[in-house]
């Protein structure tokens, strides 16, 4: 894979994002926020409506595990080795005090790993506020009604705890801000639709990782700067093949770089921490109520594999793959991640119907890649390349 940087060198803003990621969770920005007397809440899962917290003056940061593969002794002792390493990793960080600065934790009843993570967090880690949002698995009107009620309950619980009122006006403002982020990230991804994108998959991941761990206002400003940098630079990447990375949660940019080093340029992705996170905008179709708009958006968002029917997720993946002219899809499933593992046979079939081959990798959360993975990825890229000719 060849790359070219502009005369000035590396992307300045990217380094800033990298620094945020490297120092997470106790980043400069988060500590400053706390230092000014404001609260920080940790959240897990794309079905937790961030705007509600933001409108209450809280900095929401996403709980993730270690950014590399580590020994998970404590995680294993509490969660047992047969649960996904992402959940164990998050729990271990929590148990070891890495998240002791959090004023609250919020989760969704999304999958077994998340569910148990929250059960154990509640019992063993003393965070002052704890809330779980019930998330239905369907998209029916009744499911929407249930989820709306849950969002309302969450808002009430928050108001009670903070002794404050979360106004519609504040919610509206938060929605604007978050929509702006989503739009900007969308613009960043659009650049990767080019035949020679100016930014790699690994670099993009640094940006999307930072998006959920710093004040949104600051993030938006930095991203605007980055987009400007990219506009005025002549850097480009071209790989032997164009790939899409799909799967559960992945935050280690090293893994993406590892794949790209084999010649497969990752031009788009579908992960808990990327497009599934920021993909959709909150719209006010058919309602004036920000709470209704927020709740509708969050349930209809790019689906997690836990949602029913699975076709919704497959359709969106195929659409993105075609839109970004992807040659092949690499799926990474964390070992023991049930929802994503179950989807694999049918996902592969659907992609195959559009002539897009898929490679299914079984990984541990935080991995940077391994000899075995390298061999498989290389073989896959070769195969995809041959097919393309």
């Amino acid at each position: 894979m060849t790359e070219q940087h502009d005369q000035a060198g590396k992307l300045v803003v990217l380094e800033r994002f990298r620094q945020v990621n490297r120092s997470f969770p106790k980043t400069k920005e988060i500590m400053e926020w706390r230092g000014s007397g404001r609260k920080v809440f940790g959240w897990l899962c794309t079905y937790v409506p961030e705007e509600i917290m933001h409108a209450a003056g809280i900095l929401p940061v996403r709980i993730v595990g270690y950014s590399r593969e580590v020994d998970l002794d404590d995680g294993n002792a509490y969660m047992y080795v047969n649960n996904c390493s992402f959940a164990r990793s998050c729990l271990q960080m929590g148990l070891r005090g890495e998240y002791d600065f959090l004023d609250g934790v919020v989760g969704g009843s999304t999958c077994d790993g998340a569910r148990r993570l929250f059960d154990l967090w509640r019992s063993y880690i003393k965070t002052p506020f704890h809330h779980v949002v019930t998330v239905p698995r369907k998209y029916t009107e009744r499911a929407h009604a249930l989820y709306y009620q849950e969002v309302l309950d969450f808002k009430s619980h928050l108001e009670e705890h903070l002794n404050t009122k979360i106004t519609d006006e504040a919610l509206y403002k938060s929605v604007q801000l978050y929509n702006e982020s989503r739009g900007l990230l969308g613009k960043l991804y659009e650049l990767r639709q080019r035949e020679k994108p100016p930014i790699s998959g690994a670099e993009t991941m640094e940006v999307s990782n930072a998006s959920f761990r710093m004040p949104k206002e600051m993030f938006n400003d930095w991203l605007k700067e980055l987009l400007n940098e990219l506009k005025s630079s002549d850097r480009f990447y071209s790989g032997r093949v164009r790939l899409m990375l799909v799967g559960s949660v992945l935050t280690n940019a090293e893994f993406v770089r590892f794949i790209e080093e084999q010649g497969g340029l990752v031009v788009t992705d579908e992960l808990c921490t990327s497009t599934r996170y920021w993909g959709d905008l909150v719209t006010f179709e058919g309602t004036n109520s920000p709470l209704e708009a927020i709740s509708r958006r969050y349930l209809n968002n790019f689906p997690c594999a836990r949602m029913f029917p699975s076709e919704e997720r497959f359709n969106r993946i195929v659409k993105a793959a075609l839109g970004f002219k992807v040659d092949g899809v690499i799926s990474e499933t964390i070992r023991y991640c049930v929802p994503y593992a179950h989807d694999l046979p049918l996902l592969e079939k659907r992609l195959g119907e559009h002539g897009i081959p898929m490679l299914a990798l079984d990984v541990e959360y935080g991995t940077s890649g391994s000899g075995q993975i390298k061999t498989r990825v290389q073989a896959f890229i070769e195969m995809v390349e041959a097919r393309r000719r």
Partner: protein
Amino acid sequence: MNSTGSGNKLGSVIRACRLIRRMLRADPEARQSQFMYYQMLEDYFTRVLRAKEEDGFVVGHTVFFPAEIIYAMGLVPMHTETATWTMALFTGDCSDILASGARLGMAQEICTPHRGLTGAFASGALPHPEVMLWSNMVCDNTAKSGELIMEVCNCPGFFLDRPFKRSQHEIAYLVSELEDMVHFLEERSGKKMDWDKLSEIVARMDRQIELVRQINELRKNVPTPFRPQGFLELLTVDYLFPGQPEALEYLETLYRELNEAVKVGKGAVKQERFRLMTLFIPPMYLMGFLDRISREYGAVSVIEPFFTFWGEGRLDPSHPLESVARKSYMIPEMRMYGPLDDRALGAIVNCAEEYKIDGAIYYADVGCRHSCATIKLFKDTLADIGVPMLVVDCDVVDATVTSEEEVSEKLQQFFELLEDR
């Protein structure tokens, strides 16, 4: 893939039930309730096979699924997990259906009951239902299994979305899901829901739960009267016969037997030394062995917080669908589903104290992710009240994960620990 399959495995279950009844006849200690139980099991699976032969309407469903609805519509329920583990229990070998599951592309991490049941459909060991009903009780595996089963059995299906917490609006949503499910079944089967019948079933179900509570009261007695591992009967009766007359007959008979035993002070084992709490399902293929060990060491499982210890509440036959929804929140194992708040953990503590428990055994099924994540929490909760807990790594269906010898060593060590205190 043929749609009735050879029916072989279910046939083996039926034959095994007959054999067990014969053996019970030769056992002076055998109770009437045991005969009834094995007759009920035999009848249940016979009904499924007969329905397939005679073009009846078999409704496959997953665990904790409200079969009351299926019965009320005069359809034939087939509880897929029970079918799988009775096959494991009675034939002792599940490797063929597990292999069949693997051939379908099911990952090794998918727990054996689910790999086994889908594999059993694929291999024909289980007859194909006319429709498949599944829910998210009790875990992601169950929630994601339906679509593949529908494809393997080439039948339509319905996913019941059971919400996480028990607020009013969540129960209302569950009721609406049940309504949708009734419509689905009516459309597919051509039969109409008999709401009166459902009310009757709910009334019986309410009585059923009351009887289990009363039986539990008797089990508090020192010595405890209910046979070791007998709780599996209570569990299976609830899974397969919710609100059915035969379930009431069985429970009433069992209650009478236990009441008699308590009156004369007859314990389940000759010399009761250890009163245990069982926290998850023991491996099916070790049942006989565990029974022997129980008698040898005088150790009896007196209560099972997540199998037999029902949550509070009564069912109201005048609101049948709502009652069926509420029941889902009373089911002992759904308390373990979560959230694991003080109510759930409190149930363990209450049981330990009320039943005078010496120790607890947690059978850690290696394929069951969400339950293994509770091990430390439960162990710590019990340690806080001075009750030790043994963890036995095993698999409910796959006999290669642990051996009788290993389990025997662990149990021996544990009983020594209890003795030493």
